[in-house]
């Protein structure tokens, strides 16, 4: 075994350890440790990606060297390594971009605990990406929930407490359903490793026994994970939780946490059920219909908002809809589009939230659009980043969002006719709606007319903010302009994702 093959395990376990150490340091020490570790895990994930791209096949890492039916496994392929690389990079840049707000919003003696939560969150995201064991996935889903709730309630105002409670209750309902699904599946198949379950489930399906329990289990998994990743009718908790948190938390929650659960769902589809069973149980119809509704109605809700961060939060609801439509198309191309959207949204939305944080700083802490008039002139880098993000969300070529829309449309064209028509129509409507709320927001931010109240406030140049914004802008344009490499990697990764 080569050294690189240990990196996924090291990133998971050392992130947990880093969280423990952050809890005993003071604010600045914890910050340095957390940033150093996030940088290291980004480099390690990139090395893993290079290794898997070079070897061209996945490998399985046996924990404690116990082999298949007894031990716990980590499975690493191109797709997992690519996701881990992007997620750790985005996490690092989001923290840097919102650093000044973390220290403002948090009580001085509790700042170190913020970095503890970030480390735990990173660890659980790595684990959700890499794990091959269903019960481990459940445990890390819970760790993810707890850490993200703690990130929301960092600002101890009444609004964040209420938002956290609602978020936690909805998440617990979701994970209860997910756990019941895991347990029932264990009762039928007697395995917890996804590949073993997958083989048993296909056997059961061929024999035609247990068809009712299988339907129930698929329903439990999809509803449970849909609640946690804020698919349309279950999104009521999202706008409050994401808009009231500090800007780094909003960025991380919107960009990464929602995606962790979707990766688990894609893994369940590929490794446990396979396309054949999914189609015969009509799970993809459910995801497709609600994804389409989310794409349109999320954008309509965003259109009505006068609060910038709530607008961005509703935009996330719509963007999660794109991912579910990609999954619901039920073709290889659609699934690839869903994975592209996971990455494209993960690099775009945190940039928008960090820029919104910068605008709030030069507008007296207000989140209202009216107070942010001309904020882009007072915080020029944030203004540029917001414009890039808005263009990416609308889907202008050479930005990340365009790649998604292009591949989603391409995936829709390979699907069945009614689905193709609906998906393309929803894509067009959603694009128009996106333009209708992002373009006025950009105009508002660069408006020369300010009402004088904050006209002289300028943003203090900070190295971390500048670095994060520049990195986000470069990443977005690179992903949009040189998408061939990433799309090929995702296709190759999906090819080795199943059993």
């Amino acid at each position, binding site marked *: 075994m080569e050294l690189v093959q240990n990196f996924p395990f090291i990133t998971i376990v050392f992130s947990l350890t880093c969280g423990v150490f952050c809890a005993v340091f003071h604010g600045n020490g914890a910050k340095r440790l957390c940033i150093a570790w996030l940088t290291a895990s980004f480099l390690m994930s990139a090395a893993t990606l290079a290794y898997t791209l070079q070897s061209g096949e996945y490998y399985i890492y046996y924990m404690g060297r116990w082999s298949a039916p007894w031990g716990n496994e980590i499975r690493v392929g191109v797709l997992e390594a690519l996701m881990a690389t992007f997620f750790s990079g985005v996490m690092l840049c989001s923290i840097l971009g919102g650093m000044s707000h973390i220290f403002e919003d948090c009580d001085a003696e509790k700042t170190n605990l913020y970095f503890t939560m970030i480390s735990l969150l990173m660890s659980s995201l790595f684990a959700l990406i890499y794990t091959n064991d269903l019960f481990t996935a459940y445990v890390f889903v819970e760790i993810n929930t707890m850490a993200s709730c703690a990130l929301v*309630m960092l600002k101890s105002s009444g609004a964040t407490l209420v938002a956290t409670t609602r978020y936690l209750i909805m998440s*617990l*309902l979701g994970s209860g*359903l997910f756990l019941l699904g895991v347990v029932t599946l264990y009762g039928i198949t007697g395995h917890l490793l996804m590949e073993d379950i997958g083989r048993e489930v296909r056997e059961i399906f061929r024999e035609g026994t247990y068809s009712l329990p299988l339907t129930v289990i698929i329903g439990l998994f999809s509803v449970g994970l849909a609640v946690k990743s804020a698919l349309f009718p279950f999104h009521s908790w999202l706008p409050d939780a994401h808009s009231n948190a500090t800007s780094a938390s909003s960025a991380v929650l919107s960009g990464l946490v929602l995606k962790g659960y979707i990766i688990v769902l894609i893994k369940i589809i590929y490794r446990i059920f396979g396309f054949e069973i999914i189609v015969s149980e009509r799970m993809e119809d459910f995801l497709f219909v609600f994804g389409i509704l989310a794409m349109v109605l999320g954008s309509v809700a965003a259109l009505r908002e006068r609060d910038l961060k709530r607008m961005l939060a509703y935009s996330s609801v719509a963007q999660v809809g794109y991912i579910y439509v990609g999954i619901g198309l039920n073709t290889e191309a659609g699934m690839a589009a869903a994975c592209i959207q996971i990455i494209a949204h993960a690099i775009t939305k945190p940039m928008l939230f960090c820029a919104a944080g910068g605008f709030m700083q030069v507008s007296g802490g207000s989140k209202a659009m009216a107070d942010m008039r001309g904020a882009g002139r007072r915080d020029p880098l944030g203004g540029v980043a917001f414009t890039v993000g808005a263009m990416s969300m609308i889907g202008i070529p050479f930005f990340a969002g365009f790649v998604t829309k292009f591949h989603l449309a391409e995936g829709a064209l390979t699907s069945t006719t009614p689905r193709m028509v609906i998906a393309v129509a929803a894509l067009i409507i959603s694009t128009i709606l996106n333009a209708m709320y992002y373009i006025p927001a950009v105009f508002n931010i660069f408006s020369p007319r300010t009402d004088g109240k904050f006209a002289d406030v300028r943003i203090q140049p900070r190295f971390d903010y500048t670095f994060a914004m520049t990195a986000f802008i470069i990443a977005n344009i690179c992903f949009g302009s040189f998408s061939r490499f990433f799309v090929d990697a995702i296709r190759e990764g999906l090819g080795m994702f199943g059993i």
Partner: protein
Amino acid sequence: MLSNLFINYYETAAVILFGVGFTTLLMQRNLLKKIIGFNFMDSAIYLFLASKGYIAGRIAPVIVNGDTDPSHYVNPIPTGLVLTGIVVSVSVTAFLLALTCRLYDRYHTLDIDEITYLSRKGRD
């Protein structure tokens, strides 16, 4: 079909309890009752798991007198899963209770609808 419900009475009871807990967590307005509902829901799943692992007439998987024949023992994996699950639900309960304390300190009520109303009123 219906007779299966009586043969697997542990599982039936577990799923009914899960439903009770789930509805309580979703519908109740009182935060403490919500927390109780959450514990109902999770305990129901542990009952389900524990009953899956039990095999009638066998003993707990602890080796005494050097008897290593697996056919004498019950399945130990579900028990391990239950223990892990209990740890998770205990910590979530602690978190929820702490949150409830802070909400009560601020708003002097446990009714989630009223708390939401009060917090909206405070903001505008």
